[in-house]
């Protein structure tokens, strides 16, 4: 019988610990598919964050390193600089990448470190139980913004893709979402490109994945996916924010 669907080879058999309806599972799968497609599992080393994806090291079959909160891009820099032939990726959430690890993120990008960064933006701290994230929307109610994010005191959400795209360094910055089939298909292509860029030596490639957190958003999975369309994507428009090679090719 023909196999029409199977688990990507670069995922282990470990059972995921994510909440029902969480989109981390989809994003893990897309990363693993990219690794499989490019045939790079044997030389890939992933860096797991602190946040909901903290145990990602159990799920990816390649070698894995667990980083301190926010430090994944620095750890990845060390890995890549010492093993330029290996493929290094980080998998980070919004608190990790856009708050405590902002310095590491910006500087790895501006150095154009030849690494791939998967940035999962679900506008909340999931693992600690739903506190305000740097990407929480204005007015968004969380455990630490119980009256809604007040931009007068808590500031505005950080738009990572727009911010990093303003730098001269990075190769590729794009924002995708995983709330419907069309968006997932596009996310798959974009993530694969972010890995291919590294294989081709092009440099720092970051994919911001707009994601959901039904548990901490206090919604059903369906409602959460709809909320991405209604609230998240208008604030975080999807698209390619920077593609240095493509721009150079177009200019020639």
């Amino acid at each position, binding site marked *: 019988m023909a196999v029409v669907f199977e688990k990507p080879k670069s995922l282990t058999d470990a059972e995921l610990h994510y909440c029902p309806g969480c989109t981390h599972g989809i994003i893990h799968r897309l990363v693993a598919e990219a690794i499989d497609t490019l045939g790079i*599992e044997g030389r890939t080393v992933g860096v797991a964050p602190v946040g909901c994806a903290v145990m990602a090291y159990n799920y990816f079959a390649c070698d894995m*390193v667990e980083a301190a909160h926010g430090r994944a891009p620095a750890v990845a820099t060390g890995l890549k600089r*010492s093993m330029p032939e290996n493929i290094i990726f980080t998998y980070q959430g919004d608190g990790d990448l856009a708050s405590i690890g902002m310095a*590491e993120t910006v500087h790895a990008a501006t150095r154009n470190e030849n690494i791939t960064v998967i940035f999962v933006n679900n506008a909340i701290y999931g693992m600690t139980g739903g506190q305000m994230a740097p990407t929480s929307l204005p007015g968004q109610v969380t455990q630490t913004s119980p009256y809604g994010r007040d931009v007068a005191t808590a500031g505005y959400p950080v738009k990572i893709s727009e911010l990093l795209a303003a730098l001269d360094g990075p190769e590729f910055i794009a924002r995708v979402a995983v709330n419907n089939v069309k968006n997932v298909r596009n996310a798959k292509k974009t993530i694969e490109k972010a890995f291919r860029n590294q294989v081709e030596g092009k440099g720092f490639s970051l994919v911001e994945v707009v994601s959901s957190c039904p548990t901490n958003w206090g919604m059903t999975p369906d409602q959460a996916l709809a909320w991405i369309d209604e609230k998240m994507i208008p604030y975080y428009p999807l698209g390619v924010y920077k593609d240095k090679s493509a721009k150079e090719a177009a200019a020639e």
Partner: protein
Amino acid sequence: MAEKVLMKGNEAIAEAAIRAGCRHYFGYPITPQTELAAYMAKRMPKIDGVFLQAESEVAAINMVYGVASTGKRVMTSSSSPGVSLKQEGISYIAGADLPALIVNVQRGGPGLGGIQPSQSDYYQATKGGGHGDYHLIVLTPASVQEMADLTSLAFDLADKYRMPSMLLADGTMGQMMEPVILPEEHVNVIDKPWAVTGTQMQRKHNIINSLYLVPEELERTNFERYERYAQIEKEEVRYESYMMDDAEYCLVAFGIAARVSKNAVVALRAKGVKAGLIRPITVWPFPKAPIAAAAKHVKAFVSVELSMGQMIDDIRLAQNCEKPVVLCNRAGGMIPDPAQIIAAVEALKGGND
């Protein structure tokens, strides 16, 4: 025999590290260790090595963590305030059982402090520094020659025991020049099956990690680590004993304080006072046995420090408070002179006779 060259302590560390096979250096500028980074910036690109000025001390130590995960020799260096920033990463490196070298060319503190020599990071270096139960192997050079020799040793010990080691120097040691015979190129190749270098589809994936959510598992890793520490305390203690055979007063000092103490011992002996010196070369593990042995024949110990008595506890505990320990110190970037030490011993003598 290899040629004697004149080098600054900071440069001797850098060259010795390269000769020990270290090809990865990450750091952030801070006085008084800057020559070390500058040396690496110059040399690394010429030997296919990596020098990277990180965006912060925090980033630098995490880059170290990344390279250490691959099993390659790697180091960072800083001075006191910068080493405080590195503590998070050092705890992770210890928790993930990775070898790496951290150099602290100490300056006065707390806070921004000053830039002159100090030994006031003794507690931080020997009692943990970051969170959790762990130790570093801490080596304290007292000459430019030792800046080089102990750098090689620090890499070897870190590899052997899979743990971070620290070279605990001070501004004087970093800035001074002395003749030094640089160690030969040597790389002790140790098999590192735990390293993350890619599975090559030949083995199950390796994971470098310090997270254990099951307390029984985390306890087990702590217990195992402390078994290794016990072995280190048994086998890796290093110290120098100077004129201790018949000593009645034992100075205990390391680094620059030991250099000054030696002058004081010579001067005291010339006056007929039986003084001696125990110089810890490792401050963790601390040389407990020689101090306990000395307690059998000395009248008192003098802890000579560039800090506020941080080593006194260790000297007391090493000999179960059998003999008194007094402090002879300067702080904040000041260095005791021999006269101060001589006076401290003579005051003890007055009290004892």
